[in-house]
């Protein structure tokens, strides 16, 4: 299957009402060009699963400003005032999830697991409505798997088979979201021929990547 596509075709895969996962940590390792193209195309009533909501002018924060989300799952929204405003005024539902739990829910969603057991959140608001499971006398919260329709991801390099490499602290959520989404689209800083990446340096195998965009260098 040909994975290389262009921005316009890629963002048309996102439909109103979809659940999308977006890679990045405070906009480091976020596919900015995919986000800009999606804002230009327009989409509404989306559900976002992302570590945070970036800044009003960087990362998924730009989509928050464009009012594209009806619901947001994130571990931190404090760097984006608009998310706070929409949350306080009841325009957007925000579910705060501990960061380590969020990545494990995504990993479970992609890897065929029925959930994960964690002590994180016990005795806090995070516990509300969730099943507590006792294992060998220790109490854990059951956190269920998360999946999405589309994942929008960023990598330093992608080969035409979809194998990905990363630089610096950009791996964050980008390495697992592709597995947990029906369709994953990767904006790569550089697209290279098959064989140009040493298999030893591949961090995410191409099996998790459906489409590649040549985003150009940052």
């Amino acid at each position, binding site marked *: 299957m040909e994975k290389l596509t262009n921005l316009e075709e890629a963002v048309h895969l996102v439909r109103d009402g979809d659940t999308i996962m977006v890679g990045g940590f405070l906009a480091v390792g976020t596919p900015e060009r995919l986000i800009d193209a999606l804002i230009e195309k327009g989409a509404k009533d989306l559900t976002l699963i992302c570590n945070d909501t970036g800044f009003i002018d960087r990362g998924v924060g730009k989509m928050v400003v464009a009012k594209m989300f009806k619901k947001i799952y994130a571990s931190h929204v404090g760097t984006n005032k608009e998310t706070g405003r929409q949350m*306080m005024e009841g325009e957007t539902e925000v579910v705060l999830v501990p960061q380590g739990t969020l990545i494990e829910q995504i990993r479970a969603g992609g890897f065929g697991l029925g959930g994960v057991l964690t002590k994180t959140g016990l005795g806090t608001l995070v516990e509300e409505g969730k099943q507590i499971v006792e294992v060998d006398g220790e109490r854990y919260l059951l956190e269920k798997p998360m999946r999405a329709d589309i994942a929008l991801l960023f990598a330093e390099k992608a080969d035409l088979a979809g194998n990905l490499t990363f630089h*610096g602290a950009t791996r964050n959520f980008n390495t697992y979201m592709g597995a947990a989404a029906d369709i994953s689209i990767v904006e790569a800083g550089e697209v290279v021929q098959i064989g140009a990446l040493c298999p030893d340096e591949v961090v995410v195998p191409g099996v998790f990547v459906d489409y590649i965009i040549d985003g150009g260098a940052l």
Partner: protein
Amino acid sequence: MDKKQIQEFIARRVALELQDGDLVNLGIGLPTLVANFVPEGRTVLFQSENGFIGLGPAPEEDEIDPCISNAGAMPVTIVPGGSFFDSAMSFGIIRGGHVDTTVLGALQVAENGDIANYMIPGKMVPGMGGAMDLLNGAKKTIVAMEHTAKGNHKLLKECTLPLTAVSAVDLIVTEMGVIEVTAKGFVLIEQNPEYSLEQIREATGADLIISMGLQKMAVV
């Protein structure tokens, strides 16, 4: 002391807690300052929850790499021997008990070690980020904060704000002293001589046990 001096004073005391070879995670704000005062002769590695071990100082303007930033999105460097990884690995390190010490700020700490530091309902709801995982996973939790907030107690019998974690705090360092969280409650083990015991008691919203071996507050 003005606010900046107070923060530096607290950071200098917290730094004494870091042992040679420790893997340490510092929260945003005051805790980040601790990295500047690691005692000479001790090698401490800093973990950054966005995905690396070996957090180094801020780079020069012309050496900024947009892909290398800390968990507060500020440009940083990575030291020789460091490593990058994804969030699942990062929180495996945190939750799995592989971080020796975490230093966090707090809105409130209770005498049983409960901590509230991620939201004030209706006012400020930034989210917990990685704090809940750090509080559950790190071997030792140090709270670094000013003793009171505009005169209001932060050290309490029970927290009134939503908790970030239950019975998680081991040590509290403020500008007034160093307090251990024990089964009996708050125990003052070091006193900043600028404050009387009476002043420290008044600034604490729970019983304060004075340690038999009370010392003058040490700093780097």
